[in-house]
C-alpha cells in the first residue's frame, strides 16, 4: 500500500513549523510507522540544523537538479529512527534546480515509506504551492496570534482550487497572555486544532544543541503534546 504524504504548512515564518515537523516525524516513527522527513524549503533549509548534522550529504537540491536519485538523497538517521531528506545551505545549489520534479520525488518515496512528512516553505511562493500539490494531506502550524492565523487562512483560500485535504491545525508556542483561544482559531480556520504545543525553553535548548527534543527531553510537556498530535494525525489520516 502506498504511503501518505502530509505537509506542514504555515503562512508565515516563525511558527516553529520545522521544529514541529522534525519532532512529529520522530514521534510517528516511534509509533512504528516507516517515516521520512523531507525538507522542501530549498531557500531556507533547516532540518540539517535541527537534527544537528555537521556533515555533507546529498540533498533534495541534488535530486531536483538531476544529479542524484531519490535513494541517494534519503538517508537513515539511526539515532532518531527516522529517515531524512535534507536541503543544501549553499546558495549555488539553487542554480539548477527544477522544482517541478518534486511531485515525482514524493511519488517515489511513497513506494517505500508509510508516512512522508514534508516541511513546506513558509509563505505562498511557487515552490510552496508546488510542494502542497504533492501532498495528500495538509496540517497548518500557527502561533496563537492574529497575523499567523490570518496568514494560514490566506494559504487555505489561495490553494482552494488545488483540492487539498486540510485535516487540522497545530497551535504552537502557546501560554502567552494574548493567545487567541483554541476554539476561536478553529472557527477562524474552519479546521480542528489537533493539538497545542506550549512555549518552553526546552525547544530553544534542543535547537542550540542540535539534539532532537523528543529524544533529549522525553518527559517535557512539549514532547507529550507532540506525541498526542502524532496519535491524532494517525487517526485522521486513515
Amino acid at each position, binding site marked *: 500500500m502506498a504511503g501518505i504524504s502530509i505537509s506542514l504548512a504555515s503562512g508565515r515564518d516563525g511558527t516553529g513549523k520545522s521544529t514541529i515537523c522534525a519532532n512529529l516525524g520522530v514521534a510517528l516513527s516511534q509509533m512504528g510507522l516507516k517515516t521520512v522527513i523531507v525538507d522542501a524549503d530549498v531557500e531556507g533549509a533547516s532540518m540539517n540544523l535541527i537534527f544537528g548534522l555537521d556533515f555533507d550529504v546529498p540533498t533534495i537540491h541534488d535530486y531536483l537538479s538531476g544529479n542524484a536519485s531519490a535513494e541517494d538523497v534519503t538517508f537513515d538517521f539511526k539515532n532518531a529512527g527516522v529517515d531524512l531528506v535534507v536541503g543544501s545551505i549553499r546558495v549555488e545549489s539553487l542554480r539548477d534546480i527544477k522544482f517541478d520534479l518534486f511531485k515525482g520525488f514524493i511519488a517515489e518515496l511513497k513506494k517505500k515509506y508509510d508516512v512522508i512528512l514534508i516541511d513546506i516553505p513558509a509563505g505562498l511562493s511557487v515552490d510552496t504551492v508546488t510542494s502542497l500539490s504533492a501532498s495528500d494531506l495538509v496540517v497548518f502550524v500557527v502561533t496563537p*496570534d*492574529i497575523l499567523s492565523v*490570518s496568514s494560514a487562512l490566506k494559504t*487555505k483560500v489561495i490553494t*482552494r482550487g488545488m483540492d487539498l485535504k486540510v485535516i487540522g491545525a497545530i497551535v504552537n508556542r502557546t501560554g502567552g497572555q*494574548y493567545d487567541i483561544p483554541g476554539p*476561536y482559531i478553529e472557527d*477562524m480556520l474552519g479546521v480542528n486544532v489537533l493539538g497545542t504545543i506550549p512555549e518552553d525553553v526546552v525547544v530553544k535548548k534542543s535547537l542550540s544543541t542540535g539534539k532532537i527534543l523528543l529524544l533529549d527531553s522525553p518527559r517535557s510537556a512539549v514532547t507529550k503534546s507532540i506525541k498526542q498530535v502524532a496519535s491524532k494525525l494517525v487517526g485522521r489520516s486513515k
Partner: protein
Amino acid sequence: MVVDDEEDILYLVGVILKKAGHEVITASSGEECLDILKTEKPDLILLDVMMPGLDGFDTCGIIKADKEHKSVPIAMLTVKSSDEDRLRSLEECAADWHISKPVDRKKLVGIVNWLLKSSPRSHVRE
C-alpha cells in the same frame, strides 16, 4: 456598539450583551455608526456586513483608517461565513475578529469578553 440594519438582531444582541453586564449602544447602518462615533468611543464594535449603503467591510475600513478610533476592536458579526469572507475581515478591513451568524448566546458573550479583555490586534507590532 452593535451595528445591524435588522431591528430583530439589534434587539436580540442588545439583550444578550446587557444581560452579560455590558452597556450597549446601537446603530442601524454604517452611516449611523460613523455619526455616533463623532461623539462616542465604544470599547468594542460588533458590525454586520450586509447593510444597504455603506456595508460593514467599508465601514470597518473607514473606522480603522481613523486615527481616533482605529484602536477600537471591531468584530464583524455576519452571515457571510466563507473562508474568503473571514479573510477579507481580517486582512482587507483589519477587523479584530469575524463572528459568523448564527451564533449562540454563550459563544457571543465569550468572544465579546475576550475581545474586551485582549483584542488580538491590541499588542501587534508588525
